[in-house]
């Protein structure tokens, strides 16, 4: 039982959902899979007069791969990301990351839209979306606006999304054929958030790295796209010197805090180990 009362709405389209948000302002919140918000409501850490359930809005569901663009509806579940053959072919790193999120029960309900919009620094998809240079589509009373994942996160649970906006869709540029990829995550047990996690995408031509993108998860109060770390690989032969430089650059960009996953020194160390593994695996997969 959730202690505080609220009114439950289940609109059938985005326009109706926006109308409820506009009427009730910050008294209303949308709910996607509910696996972050419902526990928060039970613990009285989140309270709202109106809960707007998005599950009946079919326009928010589905995965499409169209030429150079992958489009994922916000209400697509982690399970659907894992089982989509089209997505596995176009961007297999998404399946790799979704498989290390939580457990089957959570993955059947948890959505990519909720995962990226919540602003929880422990979530895996925000860093991955920064690695992939995804764009989030926000729809509000004044229409639609795109925001780059790399620009979206301001602090823990604070994002560029306004209260009256809904994140409806994620647009991802399809990685070039032969792009090496890896999402590597260290966690205390299955279901846990990362002690450190890293997403790496890179391309290699004639033994030289031609592009690289590196993002780090749960190592600051936002996901970190480590631009300088990627830049340290580009133009190199991906040898030890370049990898060491990339790890040093990534460590400069993160700012972990001590918690029950360990002290800062441990997290910095694990971040380096995880990034090295991710880079190694991405290199092995690049073709």
């Amino acid at each position, binding site marked *: *039982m*959730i*202690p*505080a*009362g*609220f*009114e*439950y709405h*289940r609109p059938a389209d985005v326009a109706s959902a926006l109308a409820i948000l506009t009427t009730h302002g910050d008294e209303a919140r949308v709910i996607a899979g*509910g*696996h972050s918000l*419902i*526990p928060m409501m*039970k*613990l009285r850490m989140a309270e709202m007069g109106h*809960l707007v*359930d998005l*599950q009946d809005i079919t326009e928010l569901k589905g995965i499409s791969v169209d030429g150079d663009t992958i489009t994922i509806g916000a209400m697509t579940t982690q*399970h659907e990301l894992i089982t989509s053959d089209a997505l596995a072919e176009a961007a297999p790193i998404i399946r790799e990351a979704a498989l290390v999120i*939580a*457990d*089957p*029960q*959570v993955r*059947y*309900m948890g959505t990519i839209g909720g995962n990226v919009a919540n602003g929880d620094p422990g979530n895996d998809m925000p860093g991955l979306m920064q690695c992939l240079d995804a764009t989030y589509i926000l729809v509000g009373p004044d229409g639609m606006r795109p925001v780059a994942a790399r620009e979206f996160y301001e602090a823990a649970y604070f994002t560029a999304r306004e209260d009256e906006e809904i994140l409806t869709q994620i647009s991802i540029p399809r990685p070039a054929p032969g792009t090496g990829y890896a999402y590597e995550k260290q966690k205390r047990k*299955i*279901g846990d958030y990362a002690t450190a996690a890293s997403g790496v995408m890179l391309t290699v031509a004639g033994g030289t790295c031609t592009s690289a993108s590196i993002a780090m998860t749960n190592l600051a109060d936002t996901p970190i796209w480590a631009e300088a770390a990627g830049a340290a690989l580009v133009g190199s032969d991906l040898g030890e010197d370049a990898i060491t430089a990339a790890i040093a650059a990534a460590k400069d960009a993160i700012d972990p805090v001590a918690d029950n996953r360990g002290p800062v020194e441990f997290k910095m160390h694990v971040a380096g180990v995880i990034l090295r593994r991710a880079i190694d695996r991405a290199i092995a997969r690049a073709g």
Partner: protein
Amino acid sequence: MSKKFHVSTTVNGDPVEFLCDSRETVLDVLRDRLSLTGAKEGCGTGDCGACSITVDDRLVCACLMLGAEAEGKSIETVEGIAAGEDLHPLQKRFIEYAALQCGICTPGILVAAKNLLEKHPDPTEEQVRYWLAGNLCRCTGYDKIIRAVMDTAAEMREAS
């Protein structure tokens, strides 16, 4: 706030209607309104899996789904696993192998394991362990549970 939702659903194959408050979860409804107390509240936050049920064949935590969300859906709980007096092969193996001690996690694990075997009749041990990762047992150490599921899978493959 006092508005009640009239929800029509299917529970273990039977049509069921209930009234619930927006604050009630499916677990609250099952236990307090429908007297189906097999699904347990362990953590209430989706970590332990003791409340595992299936909703439209998806394995979910009943504690994190609102009762109002169940409208039009098909729910299966541990009470629907046995055919009358005849226990499901999983239930027989769990007894035979003593794959439980205190029993709180057992209904959720049985629901999760049955759902796995319906999707993957020939799972590897690794698949079983990863599938049951969302179901915590603090007594058994999991080994007997995993063996019970693996051997039930083999038995059901032979029988089919």
